[in-house]
């Protein structure tokens, strides 16, 4: 299908991610790219997506993109607000959440995520914010979708630190670590989509976004990337999808203060 308009790779990434969320699914949302994609899905095919932010806001329906996981708009529009102990111990840990929707600074070929340090832990070159809710989201949600921009830095051969476990060092590791959820089912980038091989758990590049060259994907990956035998091209954004994301962005991320 031909797209009606031009679009950016970031728009394609958000739209591709939004398409993965179904109406009425219970989705634990990280701030930033995942929050943008989930709110886009709510404006398109999933108006009743149940969004949970780790601040304890269950069923939040923000009118604009929140800057933080605790913005007032999330609290005011939520079905209910629970405490932090409740969200992690009663809702997340027992596996009650359908989809965990995460970003990260880095990912490796087994979909492990780093958001802690670049360099060594004791002597970091760049100290990143750290774990937050991500390790348990990655561990306990029934499935996990990851979003990040693809580059040699963000897709290194080896992670300096594993903040959240995808598949560890391969098949069987999630079971060994007692992680109850299925783990990452999809990694959506600005260049395409990766999915874990059912047997080896290694990420395979399965969808190339429109107007992206496969060489660019290979250059942007720090390991010897496996590309699917039948590589598909992501369906370009529809007019409706593009209008929705542009109006979402135009509305601004800032529920103006005071």
């Amino acid at each position, binding site marked *: 299908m031909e797209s009606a308009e031009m679009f950016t790779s970031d728009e394609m990434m958000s739209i591709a991610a939004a398409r993965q969320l179904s109406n009425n699914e219970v989705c634990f949302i990280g*701030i*930033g790219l995942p929050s943008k994609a989930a709110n886009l899905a709510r404006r398109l095919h999933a108006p009743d997506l149940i969004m949970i932010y*780790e*601040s*304890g*806001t269950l069923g939040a329906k923000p009118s604009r993109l*929140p*800057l*933080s*996981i*605790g*913005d*007032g708009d999330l*609290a*005011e529009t939520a079905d*209910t*607000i629970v*405490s*932090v*102990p409740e969200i*992690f*111990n009663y809702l*997340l*840990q027992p596996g009650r959440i359908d989809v965990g929707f995460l970003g990260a600074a880095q990912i490796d070929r087994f979909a492990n995520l780093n958001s*802690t340090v670049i360099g060594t*832990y004791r002597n*970091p*070159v*760049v*100290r*990143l*914010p*750290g*774990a*937050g*809710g*991500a*390790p*348990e989201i990655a*561990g*306990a949600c029934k499935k996990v979708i990851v979003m990040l921009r693809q580059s040699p830095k963000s897709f290194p051969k080896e992670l300096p*630190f*594993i*903040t*959240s*476990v995808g598949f*560890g060092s391969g098949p069987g*590791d999630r079971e*060994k*670590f*007692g*992680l*109850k959820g299925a783990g990452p089912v999809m990694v959506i980038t600005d260049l395409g989509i990766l999915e874990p091989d059912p047997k080896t758990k290694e990420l395979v590049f399965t969808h190339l976004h429109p107007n992206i060259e496969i060489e660019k994907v290979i250059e942007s990956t720090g390991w010897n990337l496996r590309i699917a035998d039948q590589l598909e091209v992501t369906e370009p954004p529809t007019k409706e999808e593009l209008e929705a994301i542009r109006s979402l962005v135009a509305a601004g*991320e*800032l*529920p*103006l*203060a*005071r």
Partner: protein
Amino acid sequence: MMFLKIILLRFTQRDTYIVCLTAHFSIMSDRWFLQGFGVRPLRQRGSHLAPIIPLSEAIGSLLNDGDTVALEGFTHLIPMSAGHEIIRQHKTDLTVVRLTPDLISDQLIGMGCVSKLVFSWGGNPGVGSLHRFRDAVEHGWPQPLEIDEHSHAGLTNRFIAGASGLPFAVMRGYRGTGLDGVTPTVLPITCPFTGEELRAVAAVNPDLSVIHAQRADRKGNVQLWGIVGIQKEAVLAGRRSLVTVEEIVDELDPRPGHVVLPSWLVTAVALSPRGSHPSYAAGYYQRDNDFYIAWDAISRNRETFLAWMSANVLGGAS
């Protein structure tokens, strides 16, 4: 009539009494009065009610150099004004406990108050880095910062254990991650019923836990609502606790989803309108997202940070 220059503040968990502030005690009226704060009744003799005292005196009397202090509030109701008072009183060698260090920890670290940070997510939400935190970890400025790092779920469970009077809490987490092994307050434990390998996280019991709430009544009962985070557990885990509030009211009428902390669970209450800014207090003022964005530039280098602190915190009124 006889006056004794003495005031008693109760240390909730130790249930001991110490002499720590100057006030007038009137035997005739059998009530406590705080010097310089009018004739507000501080405490009925024999009661366990939290006195309402000025913030400067609360920090002065409840927090010592070298203490472990929790400053809680999950994005909402962050006790900023209490943090500023800690900075003004030049408290040093503190261990600060906070799930999301946020701007207040960035300021405490940059001003040299903190030698150790116990935390689970150290960023400026939606904006990026906490530059003063990064400068301390990456370059040891203004002093080296020891870290005890967790996930939100892990530090949450440390507060739960502390609030429960238990030495540790049990959870499913950390296994396979880099934190397992570098954080000494996380250790393996085997379930005695199922044999499942889990993780024990050590209780945290701060010397002082500080939270901000919307309101208190004149007896020191505290009410908060909206995103309530880990505040109740932080207060219960603390050996002492201080609640700053937006206002003091006669009656705490119920609010949806509210948390009420009875006065007898709180050590002291201090009035501090807009005490959470640039965080927010639902029903009072909104989160100042513009300031969170502005903080990125203010805090990015040492000089602009120090100049801002000097103009806005050290020179400011308490």
